[in-house]
């Protein structure tokens, strides 16, 4: 079967899209998954309130759920990819079951395994992540394909009663490498210190 990758320019470009979104985050804590979501957040401007990840594929949503349960007064945004979410798809059911009203999930869906050679992903054909999230019982879910929806998306992700899920269909792009700190202990310490949990 032939496949046409979404390289066209009318698709959402992940780097400016994430940067624009994070500029509107207010006090929200951000939990990006491994790989490109982490690079995107770092490229938008380094921040101690971003919990960067370099591993543990499939665990962005559970990690963000843990943060959301421990910080009920803070909004928590998980930024993940289609491949990572598919690996931990059941975690959406756990989120729906716990129903934290402060948790939002954004899937940057390029329908491919971007880090490893752009192999075709499972959302490129029939799978609909927003429909899966809705069926699991998430409060509200939506799919966006147009960068013009960003102001409304920011409002949804940072203010709508959670748990909410948005799937952004994005272009496959060649972005410059922007790699944050990779020592996990340093990332963790910095994140916890920003929450007032560590001295020094």
């Amino acid at each position, binding site marked *: 079967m032939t496949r046409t990758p979404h390289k066209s320019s009318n698709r959402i470009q992940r780097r400016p899209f994430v940067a624009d979104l994070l500029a509107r985050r207010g006090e929200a*804590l951000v939990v990006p998954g491994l790989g490109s979501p982490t690079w995107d957040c770092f490229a938008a401007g380094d921040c101690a309130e971003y919990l960067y990840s370099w*591993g543990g594929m499939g665990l962005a949503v559970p990690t963000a759920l*843990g943060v959301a349960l421990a910080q009920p007064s803070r909004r928590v945004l998980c930024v993940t990819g289609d491949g990572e979410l598919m690996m931990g798809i059941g975690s959406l059911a756990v989120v729906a079951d716990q129903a934290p009203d402060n948790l939002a999930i954004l899937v940057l869906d390029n329908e491919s395994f971007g880090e490893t050679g752009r192999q075709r992903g499972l959302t490129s054909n029939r799978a609909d992540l927003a429909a899966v999230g809705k069926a699991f019982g998430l409060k509200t879910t939506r799919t966006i394909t147009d960068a013009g929806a960003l102001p409304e998306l920011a409002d949804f992700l940072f203010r709508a009663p959670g748990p909410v899920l948005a799937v952004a269909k994005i272009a496959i792009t060649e972005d410059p490498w922007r790699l944050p700190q990779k020592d996990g202990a340093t990332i963790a310490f910095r994140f916890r210190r920003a929450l007032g949990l560590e001295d020094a």
Partner: protein
Amino acid sequence: MRGSSNWSEDVLRAIEARKITTVCTIPDGGLTQLLKLIETHKSVRLVTLSTEEEGVGIATGCWLGGGRAMLAMQSSGVGNCINALGLPAAFRAPCLLLVTMRGQWGEFNPWQVPMGQAVRPALEAVGVKCYPVDRAEEIGETFAAAADFAFNSRVSAAVLIAQRVIGAKGFGQK
């Protein structure tokens, strides 16, 4: 401090004393009483998972956010957690596991044996300190020590409750 033979109550007291407020689980028969106590507890939240490794992520995220969580599961679930345990290791975050063992003492189901036998070497291979315990009255103090070790030293620890304590039985037996 020796515990009673009701180890579930001993573990719950240790959970309360250490301010662990979230227990993630895929249930096991051996955990029935403990999970029942937690399900109705006013200050400890039970999080039912779809697969055990989610609990590693949730526990790690909870700690990063200033809370304390743990994961309770059957030995077969340990296999699902191995890659995930790299997450707390990388963050230097604690991850506390309570495991009821299968595949060892009088096991009737051969499908439980490979993973049951691999639990301790697999956990140790990814840097998790293991605390095996095979007497009911020692489970509470062992769990307490493992929890203190994990949260104070910011490492992962697993309490492995021997099948000898839980008892082996076949289907249809009560």
